[in-house]
């Protein structure tokens, strides 16, 4: 096997952090044709990343600033704007 699984697993992680080069992409996908373990690893890691993204979006999209916190901030702003 030209590219070891260890090297491919690095590319699989880095694909989430940076744009892979064309050569890197081709060698990765070519490796997947021959290696089920790396293909599964890629699927697992991609799936996990997607779950985190969906969770973040869902969890925070409806959240609002609690009113007691809002009052504290308002008071701090009033004090600051009066001073200047």
């Amino acid at each position: 096997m030209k590219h070891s699984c260890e090297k491919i697993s690095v590319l699989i992680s880095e694909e989430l952090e940076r744009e892979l080069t064309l050569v890197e992409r081709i060698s990765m996908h070519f490796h997947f044709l021959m290696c089920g373990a790396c293909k599964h690893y890629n699927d697992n890691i991609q799936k996990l990343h997607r779950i985190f993204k969906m969770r973040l979006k869902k969890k925070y999209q409806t959240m609002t600033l609690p009113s007691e916190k809002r009052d504290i901030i308002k008071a701090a702003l009033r004090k600051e704007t009066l001073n200047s």
Partner: protein
Amino acid sequence: MVGFFIGTMNPKDWLDEHGDALYRFAMQRAQNEEVASDLVQETLLAAWKNHTSFSGESSVRTWLIGILKHKWIDHLRKEIRQRNQAEIADGDPTAWFDPQNGAWLNQPHQWRDDPASLCQDDQFFKVLKSCAEALPDKQQLVFEMREFQGLESDEICKVCDISSTNLHVLLHRARLGLRLCLDKNWFK
């Protein structure tokens, strides 16, 4: 021109119009009400002090979020300094692959569960969280910033003062460890 901006810029209006959006952004990162609302307050105060520097090229919200990002990074830096994470060693990746040919020692298998249902499953997130907590400290720290808090790679590099190469290595090791832990404790 400056007078025009001062006239339209009132911190109380910012709070009314953008308070929730700033709070959401801060909560997503800090995951703590106290810290998040403190960050919103610091952001609005800093915005007021520097309102003459607002160029009007971006929207007020983009400008405020930009300030909030800086406040968040400052906060993290302080926290990291306190925890003194920099000295902690990270795990050894050679244990994952055969040193002879670089093949998997513990072969990954397919995960059948659907991401959309998993992302709503609190039990799954409990397992995920405990798997993350079992990682070596430095890996855990960057992985949580990246995936649980949704920071971009370059933000994490700035906060932790590490190179992107270094970050990639840490994330790679964290993913290897986390995946195996989930394999054993969830997708068995």
